[in-house]
């Protein structure tokens, strides 16, 4: 498992890292976040690539005094994913009107190795918003304020959403244990 993490203190302009170093350090974070958000491994890979392409184009605009590279990349990843969701929603509406079925609806293991079927199923049943907050707060270990800034909501809303998501996940896991 890849374990590179970035220092959270905000670097100064003089210690601005190179894009390659930032990409190397944050790749797993961005990919993990997008995987949780989209629950689709292939899509997460595509969106990760797209995120880093966008990030490279905007790299000169990145100001280390205003936030960490990790948060900056995650914001781009979120925006990229939302754009894809919008496009996908439009595509689905068109397909619904045309009576076509969505081949993506076929369930296949999305989160990959390391995820038990119960955890995978539990995560699948969460909403994208809930998975997103789980990814940021639990998996990537961002603090409440940083997560709130990234999602554009209050820290209290982040806590509420996280609590609700974990409760739902626990419930699913418990049900799975009982059935098993």
């Amino acid at each position, binding site marked *: 498992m890849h374990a590179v993490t970035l220092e959270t203190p905000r670097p100064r302009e003089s210690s601005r890292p190179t894009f390659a170093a930032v990409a190397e350090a944050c790749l797993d974070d961005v990919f993990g976040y997008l995987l949780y958000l989209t629950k689709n491994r292939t899509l997460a*890979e595509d969106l990760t690539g797209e995120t880093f392409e966008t990030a*490279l184009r905007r790299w000169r605009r990145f100001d280390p005094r205003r936030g960490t590279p990790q948060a900056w990349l995650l914001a781009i990843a979120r925006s990229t994913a*939302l754009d894809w969701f919008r496009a996908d*929603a439009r595509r689905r509406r068109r397909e619904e009107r045309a009576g076509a079925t969505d081949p993506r609806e076929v369930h296949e293991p999305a989160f990959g190795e390391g995820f038990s079927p119960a955890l995978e199923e539990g995560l699948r049943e969460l909403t994208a918003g809930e998975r997103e907050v789980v990814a940021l707060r639990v998996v990537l270990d961002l603090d409440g304020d940083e997560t709130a800034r990234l999602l554009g909501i209050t820290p209290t809303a982040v806590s509420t959403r996280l609590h609700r998501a974990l409760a739902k996940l626990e419930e699913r896991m418990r049900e799975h244990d009982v059935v098993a």
Partner: protein
Amino acid sequence: MMSSPDLTDLLRASRPSAPADLRARVREIAAAETARTPWPRLRLPGRRIALVALPAAAALALSSAGVLGLARSDRSTEAVREQAATDQAAPEATPGKEFGGVAGGADVAPTPGRAQRVTATLTLEVADSDAVSRAAQQALVVTRSLGGHVLSASVSTGEEGSATLTVRVPVGKVQDAIVRFSALGKITSQQITIDDLQESLDALERRASSVRAQIALIAARLETEPLDPETRARLETRLRTLRSELRELRRGIAATNAEARFATIQLMVLTPGALGVVPVPSRLDRTLDEALNALVWEGVIALAIAIVAAPFALVALAVWFGRSLYRRREEERLLAT
């Protein structure tokens, strides 16, 4: 059964890792960083622009107001000098033109041998309240010495003294009177008006001659001709009317002659404060005043621009706000699936 700490541990332990091909792709993307142009793009964030632009605009407004103030205070200086020159020239030129006694300008003086109504108004400036009293007394002495008399006199002393005298002097001595009054202070204004009375006097005298002739004729008829009582009564009534009219005509002629014999002069003696004279401001004061005026105008123009631009800005703000709200709702909807 699984608790939250276990669950979070499990989630952290199963943290996703990017596959090797994605890692290679991202490295490829990152490698393009060095291939890019080394020229940094000009980046002007809004806050930095505002931080520079606002003080710059304020400095520009202040400096332009200062420059305008300086330039206009120069013009103001010239205007003040011209005004001062005019003011100094006026007391010398005006009495000479109006009254021949000083500079030989007899063209507007009363015409000897014609009945004319002459009125003059003269305003004099003296140093202080005491000078007002002295000038008023001198004016009365001058009036009497010229054979004239005072119609009215009002003298008030205090911080801003003033005196108003209305005198009548013989027309033949009006120029002398004006010249002597002018010597009592600095002339600030004067006006002389001459109305010709000769024509009306001639008309009155012609009518009087006619009436006298008619009276003589009627009197002769009444004395010499045998008349019936009715005619006699009518002529006697006519005679009385004519004699009454003749008396009125004689009074009119006498009044006109009297008016033509004396000129009326209204003399006002004032201190500078009573005249409302404002001292000439200094160059610095004028510069500051002009700079302030320029600033006020700049403010007015800025306000006008703001008023014109405000509706557009409000519409843009509303569009931006609506778009943000819509996107927020859309995000919530998308993330709720």
